[in-house]
């Protein structure tokens, strides 16, 4: 009887572990992308930061999208902001959209950040970090490259402006645009 209960408890713990692994969609999203699979990015509708109205991810279908999760208090986000702006300006005619999602932040701080770095790409506010969670973001910044069908081609944790990451990001963008 006692042995049965002990086995039951262990089985319950394994079931909880399996459940947490299976429901961790975001983590799986980045892992799947970096394994060469192309999981569909979760769609979202968020309040815009740069202008009035909402922004829906699926409205960019047909274009490649660089989704960048950032926060005004995040130091690597400051370092990569000029690079992301440059990326947007240089590639917007190639059907590439850079999309900044500000998470866990005051709106006013986020707007000041955008002004300070002269960001002109679309920005949306994910204050409570719900979309960051659905993408499996574990820290800031994190960047996802989506192809024209909204599938994740690659995911990058940390800044994407470094010499080691930049070529991989550009390669992923080329791949996303080629679909």
């Amino acid at each position, binding site marked *: *009887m*006692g*042995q049965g*209960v*002990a086995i039951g*408890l262990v089985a319950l713990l394994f079931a909880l572990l399996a459940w947490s692994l299976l429901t961790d969609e975001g983590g799986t999203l980045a892992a799947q992308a970096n394994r060469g699979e192309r999981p569909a990015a979760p769609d979202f509708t968020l309040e815009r930061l740069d202008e009035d109205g909402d922004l829906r991810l699926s409205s960019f279908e047909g274009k490649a999208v660089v989704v960048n999760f950032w*926060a*005004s*208090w*995040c130091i690597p986000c400051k370092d990569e902001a000029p690079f992301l702006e440059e990326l947007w300006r240089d590639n917007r005619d190639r059907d590439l959209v850079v999309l900044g999602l500000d*998470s*866990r*932040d*005051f*709106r006013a*701080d986020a707007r000041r950040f955008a002004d300070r770095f002269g960001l002109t790409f679309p920005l949306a506010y994910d*204050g*409570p*970090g*719900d979309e960051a969670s659905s993408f499996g973001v574990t820290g800031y910044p994190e960047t996802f490259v989506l192809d024209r069908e909204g599938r994740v081609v690659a995911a990058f944790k940390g800044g994407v402006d470094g010499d080691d990451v930049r070529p991989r990001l550009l390669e992923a963008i080329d791949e996303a645009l080629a679909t």
Partner: protein
Amino acid sequence: MIRAAALALVLGVIATGPAYAAPPNAADLEAELVCPVCETTLDQSNAPVAERMKTFIRARIAAGDSEQEIKDALVVQFGSEVLAEPPGGGFGLLAWLLPIAGLVGGAIAVALLVRAWSRKASPADTSAEPLDPELERLVDDELARFDG
């Protein structure tokens, strides 16, 4: 007359009770909210965003907001991770219930195991095989020698 006056006084105190409610304490709130950068409570952080959050808390207290309203406003902007203690409802309730369930489950498991072991041990005592008569006689002889 006196009774009526006392009743009026009590009712008056009850009716005016909320007007005397103390405003939220900034230090208490700073100990209950977490800085998103260093993930310590605000009172232990001097990160710029923590300072901004402290300023926000003081401004909302000055504006007359309750503790819960201030927490709710920060959760909307920073997510429920901003709360040092998980919320008491929804998924956050699990953080409170699981340790209790673990303790209760562990205690039940230990109790059942002890019971099972004691049951195994007790039949062995009662069903002990009788000593071989020859061996028993030898033991008795040896004991008699010592006694003698």
